[in-house]
């Protein structure tokens, strides 16, 4: 293939370009129809005194933003968010990768285990609150009960300002199901021939993992990391069901701060401003990851 240089493009390139736009057309229409309005609406509304009613809105410039920056609880929520995001991404992705590798083994009964590990993903939602009371319950929970067996007095977990964030990170490890499934699909996509030829070259397990699995998996891993960062920023259910930002403000993350301003304090303008700050932070982080990704992500079929 020849490199394309910026100059009047050839008829075949033009045809390819037309096909490109034809293929992304549904998405583009949806973007304009369903997203553009709300998204730009939110941007505009973040500069108003919007509470609920959309009539008689006052333009108040950057007031919502300056109010946020002056609120120490907002900064606490930013700190809490970063803490939890880093924990969830580092531990969650490594744990998911470990599980995916285990579930990719050819051992008897693996189909059963795969089903078992999907379970929390499928039962998500309804049983969650009851289950975590079961597990994290400081007095009777399975976790502290188990620790007691080996002579450790367990911490109060989510009922302590010190322990709540580690607890939430630990809790998130049980919801790695989706990420694990993606990684498993990625592992399945690594051609067997590559392992076979590596074995012929005398490669051990670690060498195979390092030189075959990781590079072949890197595009999927890259996706998983980006998605983990985004979903950790936006994860809301556990905070709402389990901690409501507490104790104190110790698990108040940005999305909970946003929700509280929108639906409890009825300050939708402020909530819109929080959304945009989150957006900017995530944009910067994602941009950074794409830049770093160029160094470690290996695309088998990348058109260069």
């Amino acid at each position, binding site marked *: *293939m020849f490199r394309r240089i910026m100059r009047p493009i050839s008829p075949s390139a033009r045809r*390819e*370009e037309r*096909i*490109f*736009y034809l*293929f*992304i057309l*549904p*998405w583009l229409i*949806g*973007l304009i129809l*369903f997203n553009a*309005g*709300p*998204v730009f*609406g939110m941007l505009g509304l973040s500069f108003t005194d919007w509470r609920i009613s959309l009539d008689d809105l006052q333009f108040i410039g950057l007031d919502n933003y300056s109010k946020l920056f002056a609120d120490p609880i907002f900064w606490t929520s930013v700190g809490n968010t970063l803490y939890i995001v880093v924990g969830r991404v580092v531990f969650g992705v490594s744990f998911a990768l*470990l599980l995916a590798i*285990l579930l990719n*083994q050819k*051992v008897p009964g693996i*189909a059963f*285990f*795969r*089903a*078992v590990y999907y*379970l*929390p993903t*499928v*039962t998500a*939602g*309804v*049983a*969650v609150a*009851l*289950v975590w009371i*079961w*597990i994290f319950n400081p007095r*009777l929970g399975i976790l502290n009960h188990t620790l007691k067996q080996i002579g450790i007095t367990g911490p109060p977990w989510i009922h302590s300002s010190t322990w709540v964030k580690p607890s939430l990170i630990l809790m998130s490890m*049980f919801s790695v199901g989706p990420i694990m*499934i993606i990684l498993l699909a*990625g592992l*399945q*996509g690594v*051609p067997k021939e590559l392992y076979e030829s590596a074995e012929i070259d005398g490669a051990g*397990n670690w060498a195979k993992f390092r030189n075959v699995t990781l590079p072949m998996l890197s*595009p*999927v891993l890259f*996706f998983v990391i980006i998605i983990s960062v*985004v979903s950790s920023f*936006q994860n809301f259910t556990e905070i709402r069901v389990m901690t409501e930002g507490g104790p104190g403000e110790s698990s108040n993350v940005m999305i909970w701060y946003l*929700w509280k301003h*929108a639906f409890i304090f009825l300050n939708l303008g402020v*909530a819109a401003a929080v*959304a945009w700050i*989150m*957006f900017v932070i995530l944009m910067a982080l*994602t941009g950074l990851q794409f830049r770093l990704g160029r160094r470690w992500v290996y695309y088998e*079929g*990348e058109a260069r």
Partner: protein
Amino acid sequence: MTTDKPKKSVSWLKSIEGRRAIGIIITFALLVPLGVAFVLPFIVMVSTALKPLKQVFAFPPTLIPETVQWQNFPDGWYGYGYVDFTTCTWNSLKITINNIIGNLVSCTLAAYAFARLKARGKNFFFAIVLATMLLPNEALVVPQYVLFSRFGWLDTHLPLMVPPWFGWPFFIFLLRQFFLTIPEELIDAAKIDGAGHARILLQIFIPLSKPALATLAIFAFIGNWNNFFGPLLYLRTPNVQTLPVCLVQYQGAYGNTEWHLMMAVATITVIPVLLIFIFGQRYFVEGIATSGVKG
């Protein structure tokens, strides 16, 4: 390659087997205890579904019900005659199936374009795909509701069933990553055979991406099947409601929640999903391993 195999010495084979045995032991040693933890939510759900209400909050809590109350299942499904779980389940099923197909079609097209076609403006539009994932949904709830109310779509399934046909950034990104792993030589070979992009997509990318497409289908299933806030907002009449919204109808104020009935219905509706997973996973997980990249 196949001719190499008989040449291998017996001890070499043994050491591979030995290694494999150790591998199996380690795998089980990790999978079993972790698996117990992962099954727990399901067990708690089923156990709650079998208890009388007073036992749900009995102290100390028990996993195995003292008395098994099978009546929870018919009672839960009946919903006091005012929550129609049969209709809710059908509505959820209809929306979910529609959305899986919609997402598969629209996202495959866009992902192929972003992964494999050259065009001016591609990076710009891909940045927008990513950007739309980054705005928290909670912030868009109200504006989106206003928008659909202007469309006159409230109390219909349209706000839930139409957008999936117009792509979903998360899935487009997911498929693009998978499509990028497919070797360029395959496309070149197909191009030499005179295949157009539609044929390359249909005959090379889709068969080779079965695990990725199945993953997408599973996510679309879970996401839509469990979608709560959308239906809660957009739907009002009982006969258009979906399952997650119907389930919480057992939730009352001031601790009045009938957990046993809620979990009974949840169990009934989770079991078919589980079966699909158990039987489906073999197909989707082994899709590429058997078809391979042999072309």
